[in-house]
């Protein structure tokens, strides 16, 4: 602990003050206070190092070599056709953010009404939304996480989605974060708050894409609040450039009988770290955490999940698949807390990995902390290669070896993608997987 404190700060927060100017202006006092605290916290924590248990497999030191500056400063003007290919062909409400800033021109919003509010978070802050004041930064803890602190201190904009009690969103909501700046070190801090009222239902796609092959930095935070019996599906798809850094926290809080389905599909970035966290704040909740990470080249893709069974009678299912090729490095750390009160907890965690090359690496670690006695917790991790028996079976029917291997890799990935409840997204991801594993030149 002392070590961390005494180390020189490799990531000077003062250098980030430039971001403050881009953060929301005319801030409400409550937000100014939180930002001040978060900024101090970020300075205190400093950039994590591999000496930190939570970061021992993921070295973010290369970040300190970049000169970070707000991506907005070098953001080009985009036309709808520039981003058309990221739409999933989906009939939806779409909020588009370019280099962290909301673009009204590129977005398609629902008609203003009280049932479903969708829009720029900065806008809702300016209009003094009481819901935002109540929930923003109240759930994703920045006290222990440098990147969450940084985001909280400096976020410029992001999405706000709120659905009223008893309502079901008429269409899925697509939050599209586009990295367009080609400036090395261009940085954005997208911030999203999603509120689902009592018994409400909502499907959200949060996708992160890059237009340029630039060394961008994204540090995103998404908070989801599920009131009693709310049902939310959240599908995060990360396809940043393979030179980018992507760090994200997704934190959901579930009230009684809430049901949260999370998908984290990580395809891009040179270094990606996803924290997917669920807190059961009342009985009867259910959380499903699906994940798929595909790494090749020199990519490092890290998922840290935390499921906090703070209350009894809740269920969690984690299902993460990784496919690693080249010199890619995957990390899966699955933490499950079962608090003393949380009797009759049912927690299940599976992490399976397919290593396609001798140089690919996976570090997988279940971490169960159980303080209740009447619970059911299972976990399993598997690392393997393709089944040669299955490859032979397909070949014996006339399917060429390369295609046979591809079919099996896709099948492995489909195990996760197939769980996505939004048909168009599922179909497009399947297509993406086909392309990803196609040999060059075919």
């Amino acid at each position, binding site marked *: 602990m002392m070590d961390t404190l005494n180390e020189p700060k490799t990531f000077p927060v003062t250098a980030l003050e430039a971001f403050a100017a881009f953060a929301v202006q005319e801030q409400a006092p409550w937000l100014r206070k939180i930002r001040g605290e978060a900024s101090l916290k970020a300075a205190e924590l400093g950039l994590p190092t591999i000496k930190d248990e939570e970061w021992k497999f993921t070295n973010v030191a290369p970040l300190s070599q970049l000169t970070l500056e707000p991506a907005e400063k070098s953001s080009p003007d985009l036309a709808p056709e520039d981003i058309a290919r990221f739409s999933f062909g989906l009939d939806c409400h779409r909020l588009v953010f370019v280099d962290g800033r909301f673009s009204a021109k590129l977005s398609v919003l629902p008609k203003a009404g009280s049932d479903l509010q969708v829009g720029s978070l900065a806008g809702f802050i300016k209009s003094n939304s009481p819901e935002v004041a109540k929930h923003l930064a109240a759930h994703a803890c920045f006290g222990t996480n440098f990147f969450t602190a940084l985001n909280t201190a400096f976020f410029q904009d992001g999405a706000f989605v709120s659905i009223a009690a008893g309502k079901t969103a008429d269409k899925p909501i697509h939050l599209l974060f586009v990295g367009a700046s080609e400036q090395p070190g261009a940085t954005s801090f997208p911030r999203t708050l999603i509120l689902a009222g009592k018994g409400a239902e909502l499907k959200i796609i949060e996708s992160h894409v890059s237009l340029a092959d630039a060394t961008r930095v994204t540090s995103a935070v998404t908070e989801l609040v599920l009131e009693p019996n709310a049902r939310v599906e959240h599908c995060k798809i990360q396809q940043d450039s393979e030179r980018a850094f992507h760090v994200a926290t997704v934190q959901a809080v579930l009230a009684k009988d809430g049901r949260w389905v999370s998908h984290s599909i990580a395809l891009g970035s040179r270094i990606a770290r996803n924290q997917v966290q669920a807190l059961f704040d009342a009985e009867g909740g259910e959380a499903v955490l699906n994940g798929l990470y595909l790494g090749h080249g020199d990519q490092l893709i890290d998922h840290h999940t935390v499921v906090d069974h703070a209350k009894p009678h809740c269920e969690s299912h984690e299902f993460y698949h990784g496919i690693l090729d080249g010199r890619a490095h995957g990390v899966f750390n699955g933490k499950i807390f079962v608090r003393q009160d949380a009797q009759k907890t049912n927690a299940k965690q599976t992490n399976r990995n397919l290593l396609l090359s001798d140089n690919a690496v996976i570090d997988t670690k279940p971490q169960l902390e159980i303080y209740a006695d009447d619970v059911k917790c299972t976990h399993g991790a598997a690392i393997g290669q393709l089944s040669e028996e299955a490859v032979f*079976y397909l070949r*014996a029917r*006339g*399917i060429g070896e390369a295609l046979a291997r591809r079919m099996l890799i896709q099948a492995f990935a489909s195990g996760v993608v197939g769980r996505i409840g939004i048909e168009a997204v599922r179909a497009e991801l399947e297509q993406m997987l086909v392309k990803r594993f196609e040999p060059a030149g075919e």
Partner: protein
Amino acid sequence: MINIRSGQNTERDMLDIRNLCAGVNGAPILKNLNLQVKAGEVHAIMGPNGSGKSTLAQVLAGRSDYEVTGGSVDFNGADLLEMKPEDRARAGVFLAFQYPVEIPGVNSTSFLKAALNECRKARGEEELDAMEFLSMVKQKTKLLELDQSLLTRSVNEGFSGGEKKRNEIFQMAVLEPKLAILDETDSGLDIDALRVVAGGVNKLRRPDNATLVITHYQRLLNYIVPDVVHVLAHGHIVKSGGKELAMELEERGYDWILETVASNGKP
């Protein structure tokens, strides 16, 4: 009448195995095996456990776990042993697996469509579109009394033993191979399933294709009547005869043949 030995017939053999030697991890299993099969014929290969029956099936299909150390296999004029497994399948060799593998996540229908179109391409035929494929599949499922809903599932995943075997013959019906090798297709089948599977195989018999039925028991041969029965022991064919040989084996077991062979030296 069909001649057992090829020398007496001017018609060319579809499959001509000469002095085939193969093993696994340096241990020899097949030792100078000879076998000739003509188009239109059904040959049964019987033999005690461990005699090399399944090895023969796997070697013919191209499984790389087995090492071929000698001999030759000619299939319609081509050197089969030089071909990759997929090329053998495209040339018309089909192995109905003894233990069909479950492949989670690979849809049965798309798998079969991909396989069929590869085989059709190799035969110089047009690929089938989705509609043509489905109507053909529907027809063939009837032949095997196969529940069509199985085709919406992953390949063999969660299939019962009988469903797996039926699915193998169904695939054979779709792919229409020249040479079908049935590796213990009867094992694990109840009598009704056996009748259905055998009925399917019989309906698929044509003058231009051949079937190699590998089995431990005579039972299957009541339904798929062979032209020739071979006894495989110690890695080679020790005796060949008509279908009555199978009856004799059923009655007397394998020991008497092994003893006869031992006393006579090489067959």
